[in-house]
């Protein structure tokens, strides 16, 4: 019989006590794993928010935004000025174009197909309308026809009838991010490579690609110029997927406005510095020149609350781990005291201190392994509810727990909105936090439990070295 086999046998020597110890350990380990899952879920959410709009500021020409308003266009020089502001991590310039399908260009102005139309898309020369071989993936519908009624000419004296179709948004970008600063989710193909150089490669939204039967490597035209589909992206919305991304210089060339920007996406280094960076940007760019806006004003509050949950879950995780270690320590001290006679006999017949110590450590690990299995099952069922309760206790609104269909834990969605609550105004972004953890996270959690158990078992194992066989044998 090996040391391991003897340790396993000893772990089950008193089955009732073993069951009780495993149950207590399982609760501690289950709680630790649940807290780890919650911590990871909240961390991921905070990271996601910080990585997207959380630290992103948008700079538009003063008085203009997108295809609306007026004012003077932004320039590359102003982008450089913005990049020099402290706490600014990056500045990505964008240039927006409106693409109109070639078959619909026989309008009343008689502009030649393929020519850029500066100023045609909005006041101040902010956007340019150019023709394309693409067909929009969105039907105009009631809303489109109503919104564009003022721009549509029908039944003119010339007898030409304009058939209205929604335009396609084409955006020149200086990096692989959308206009909200979020990294593009390219589902097939590749990015555009060097976004600072003009190129005839383009990224096409999924629905637009589907509508026009485009795949990676397909070609289409913008202003009579052939473009190759380098990649297809998923923006997550129907409107967002009816779009094309080009490199910034290419879009500027198509609009015949080199150096001009429609907007700038400014990423600040941390949530805490967003307000200061916004003020500084507004100051250096001038209030009459640029409008600096923050996507979600209340996001900082929301993230702050999530960070609070993250902190609580981390502390609870450490406390649960320490509890598991303490349970092991106390149990093993009790077992060592109980088995003094046996330890003395083993030493009398030649067992080394390290052999006996190892036997007790292995016995502790057997108990922890059993506790981990049951604890993981507890975490499986309870992590969503525990995380939900944590978030509820940190907001004025409740959170509805729901367990996911697979993987560890589940979702704890909703509950972040509500007037006057700390998450008020950020509801759209914090619709849900999903308590799902990768097997790696769970494995790391269990590894930490085992590490703590080894430390907890070492103390009593070292105590065995102090037992002198003669004291035990004489004591009988």
């Amino acid at each position, binding site marked *: *019989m*090996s*040391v391991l086999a*003897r340790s396993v*046998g*000893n772990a089950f*020597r008193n089955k009732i006590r073993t069951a009780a110890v495993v149950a207590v350990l399982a609760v501690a380990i289950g709680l630790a794993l649940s807290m780890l899952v919650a911590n990871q879920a909240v961390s991921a959410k905070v990271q996601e928010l910080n990585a997207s709009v959380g630290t992103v500021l948008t700079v538009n020409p003063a008085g203009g935004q997108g295809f609306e308003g007026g004012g003077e266009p932004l320039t590359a020089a102003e982008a450089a000025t913005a990049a020099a502001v402290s706490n600014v991590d990056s500045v990505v310039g964008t240039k927006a174009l409106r693409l109109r399908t070639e078959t619909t260009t026989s309008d009343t102005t008689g502009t030649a197909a393929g020519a850029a139309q500066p100023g045609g898309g909005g006041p101040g020369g902010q956007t340019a309308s150019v023709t394309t071989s693409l067909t929009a993936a969105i039907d105009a519908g009631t809303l489109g026809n109503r919104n564009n009624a003022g721009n549509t000419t029908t039944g003119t004296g010339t007898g030409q009838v304009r058939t209205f179709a929604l335009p396609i948004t084409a955006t020149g970008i200086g990096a692989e991010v959308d206009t909200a600063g979020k990294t593009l989710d390219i589902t097939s193909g590749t990015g555009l490579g060097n976004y600072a150089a003009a190129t005839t490669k383009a990224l096409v939204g999924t629905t637009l690609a589907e509508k026009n039967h485009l795949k990676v490597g397909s070609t289409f035209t913008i202003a009579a110029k052939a473009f190759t589909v380098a990649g297809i992206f998923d923006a997550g919305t129907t409107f967002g997927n009816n779009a094309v991304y080009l490199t910034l210089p290419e879009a500027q060339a198509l609009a015949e406005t080199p150096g001009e920007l429609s907007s700038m996406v400014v990423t600040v280094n941390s949530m805490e510095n967003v307000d200061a960076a916004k003020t500084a940007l507004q100051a250096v760019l001038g209030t009459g020149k640029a409008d600096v806006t923050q996507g979600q004003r209340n996001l900082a509050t929301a993230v702050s609350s999530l960070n609070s949950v993250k902190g609580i879950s981390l502390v609870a995780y450490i406390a649960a781990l320490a509890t598991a270690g303490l349970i092991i320590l106390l149990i093993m001290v009790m077992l060592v005291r109980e088995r003094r*006679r*046996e330890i003395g*006999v*083993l*030493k*009398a*017949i*030649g*067992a*080394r*201190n390290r*052999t006996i110590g190892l036997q007790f450590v292995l016995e502790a690990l057997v108990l922890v392994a059993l506790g981990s299995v049951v604890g993981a099952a507890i975490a499986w069922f309870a992590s969503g509810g525990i995380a939900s309760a944590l978030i509820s206790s940190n907001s004025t609104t409740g959170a509805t727990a729901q367990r996911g269909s697979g993987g560890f834990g589940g979702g704890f969605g909703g509950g972040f909105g509500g007037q006057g609550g700390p998450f008020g105004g950020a509801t759209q972004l914090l619709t849900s936090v999903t308590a799902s953890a990768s097997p790696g996270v769970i494995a790391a959690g269990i590894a930490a439990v085992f590490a703590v158990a080894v430390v907890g078992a070492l103390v009593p194992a070292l105590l065995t070295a102090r037992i002198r*066989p*003669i004291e035990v*044998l*004489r004591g*009988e």
Partner: protein
Amino acid sequence: MIEVKDLVRQFKSGDRTIKPVNGVSFELGKGALASIVGKSGSGKSTLLSLLGALDKPTSGDVVVDGISLAGLPDSKLTEYRRRDIGFVFQQFKLIENLSAVDNVMLPMEFAGVRKSARAQRARDLLEQVQLDPEKHSRRINRLSGGEQQRVAIARALANEPKLILADEPTGNLDEQTGEHIIELLSSLSRNHNTTILVVTHDRSLARKADRRFRLLQGQLSEEVTAGT
């Protein structure tokens, strides 16, 4: 082989000093079978503990094959017990949740003997002490006192020690099995050059010994037998 020099072990009991072993000296050669008799509390078990390096003397020394135990660190004393000593304790001192064969295998495991070899040897030894093969895999707490005593003797023989220290080895055995154990110990001393020191009340066992000692109030005296 074993030389005991003016061995003293004393304890404090309140204001009193007790000396269960008080100036014991003797020598035993290889293959000797010696017995010690004495009243309860005369210091017999304490003397065995000192010889087996379970305890350290207050003064004096035990020299085994030229090596003084007094100068050895704990790790070396453990090695000495593992390699050179076989104990048969008065109350067996077996591990109760292990089987008979597992108990006999323990000293071999500590000595690094391969698992297959130690299992075979353990079964052989249990057969030598006449434990029913059906009971080899039975847990100790399901064996009778006499059967446990036989397992304890088999465990003492596991690593083929140079010196076997036995405290009442036949105390819990019936007459027939006791006789067999005495024969086994005698043959070990004769055929394997194993030195055996037995503490016993069993007169027949004591008579089988080559040398007979009597311990009285911590002092050891050798009984001179007829013909010596």
